[in-house]
């Protein structure tokens, strides 16, 4: 990574770290993980299951909210506030700016996920009193959540490169919701014949497949995750993000900064 991308990434990270709203969201996520303990206590024999389910869902949901919340403003805010002018009038290429912003946001989300994961493991220790070997799969679920963040970051950045923050948020969140049901969408596409089937199939493969990246239910039941799934999901998330980022770069490269 070149020095300019690193500088933009670290500045993006610093901006997020100094934003109070971020702490409110993290606090809320930790509170939800804590609440899982109490919900677990009234769920006889399935405390651990509830804690893992609720805890990881909180990490995922709040991470997505943070990714969209910060991601949609990454480019548009810089244009609106004209901070971009003093950056792009330096030897910074437009693609370097986009990639730097992406790494900054992704870094912020990884650090957030780390702290929220500590909360989940603390809650788990509280209800189960000790860890089991199968709890290690929780780390894989967390890794998949981070892959989801990478995809949603790139999408937020893509939308942010051509539309307003509000529209970008609507687009990104809609894609997250649709993507979470992408397996159902693929099932539906397989059932429908003719042009409607082709359209459904196209949409099913176009939206990010967040269903495949959600293994919270499996790890909550202590099920192992196949290494093939880990490899394919990694490849899928990296490719999807790369394509979305390329789109963002392509649009931004030709944009007039009025």
């Amino acid at each position, binding site marked *: 990574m070149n020095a300019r991308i690193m500088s933009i990434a670290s500045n993006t990270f610093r901006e997020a770290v100094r934003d109070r709203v971020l702490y409110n969201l993290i606090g809320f996520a930790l509170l939800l993980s804590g609440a899982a303990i109490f919900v677990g206590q009234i769920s006889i024999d399935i405390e651990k299951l509830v804690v893992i389910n609720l805890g990881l869902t909180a990490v995922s949901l709040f991470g997505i909210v943070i990714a969209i919340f910060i991601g949609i403003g990454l480019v548009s805010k810089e244009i609106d506030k*004209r901070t971009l*002018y003093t950056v792009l009038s330096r030897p910074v290429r437009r693609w370097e700016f986009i990639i730097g912003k992406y790494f900054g946001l992704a870094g912020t989300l990884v650090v957030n996920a780390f702290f929220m994961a500590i909360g989940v493991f603390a809650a788990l220790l509280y209800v189960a009193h000790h860890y089991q070997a199968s709890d290690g799969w929780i780390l894989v679920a967390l890794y998949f959540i981070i892959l989801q963040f990478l995809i949603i970051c790139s999408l937020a950045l893509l939308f942010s490169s051509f539309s307003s923050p509000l529209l970008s948020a609507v687009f990104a969140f809609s894609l997250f919701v649709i993507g979470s049901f992408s397996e159902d969408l693929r099932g539906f596409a397989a059932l429908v014949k003719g042009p409607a089937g082709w359209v459904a199939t196209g949409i099913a493969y176009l939206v990010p497949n967040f269903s495949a990246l959600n293994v919270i239910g499996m790890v909550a039941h202590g099920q192992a995750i196949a290494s093939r799934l880990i490899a394919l999901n990694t490849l899928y998330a990296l490719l999807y993000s790369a394509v979305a980022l390329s789109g963002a770069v392509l649009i931004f490269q030709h944009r007039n900064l009025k």
Partner: protein
Amino acid sequence: MAPAIEILGLEKTYMVGFWRKRPKLALKPLHLTVEEGEVLGFLGPNGAGKTTTLKMLMGLVFPTAGEAKILGMDVNDPEVKAKIGFLPEQPYFYDYLTARELLAYYGRLSGVAGKQIVKRAETMLARVGLQDSADVQLRKFSKGMLQRVGIAQAILHDPQVVFLDEPMSGLDPMGRREVRDLMGELKKEGKTVFFSTHVLSDAEALCDRVAVIHQGELRGVGAVAELTSSVHGTVELVWQGKSVPASMKTLNADCQITGDTVRAVIPEENQDLAIDALRRDKLRLISVIPMRATLEEYFVERLKRAETSVGGTA
């Protein structure tokens, strides 16, 4: 040697409207050259096309036609961007950063060597008088302080060509004076300065040449004295006596009698006729002083002429 800035027919048309897009001309083909070490004032009222021109030179907006070169290289060449500094109009910076952090960030983006960044930032903060506020977050800065930070970031990396968009905007009289001094220092250092302004006195005090732009079209370029000489000036005549020759009224003289002297301001072209009239009346002439037209008078005349020609063709 290539000129510092070479604008070769830069033109910009924006498409406006939501459903039915229609073209709106922001800048007619602009041809302008700025030599190395020159201070050029880019003058024009608000909305004249100054900022559009600067944005195209910075690669922020793409021209519809034409091209521009800085130090002989294309404006979008990253190599050239390391050699230029830019202060946007009404700058806004990352307000969560302190002035020191901001300069360090820009220093890294400009390719200033790691060890030099801290030193350069310190020097620049001292140069713009912000050393005591170096560790204060920019959200607590006044408009004038932000303008100073803006100037510091523009010259941080010791650029050869400096572009300043309305650099005096938001500054109090002391601040304006300091910026003027700073621009004078830049000129002494041999830097090329291209600055836009609508404050004519700033341009008059600082520029080697000025370029006047109005409604997206370049109306005149030249040294301040050259441009103002094209405006019909006035002459001040002072003579001893308490009377004004009757013929003075026909010469459009504006006369004032003070004690035993008379002061008259007349159009330059009536100077000889007025002196003849004084001779005929045997009045003792004390002085004849040409009153130089100000840049403001030039500017107003050009704008009037432009409006008349638009009215005439309509």
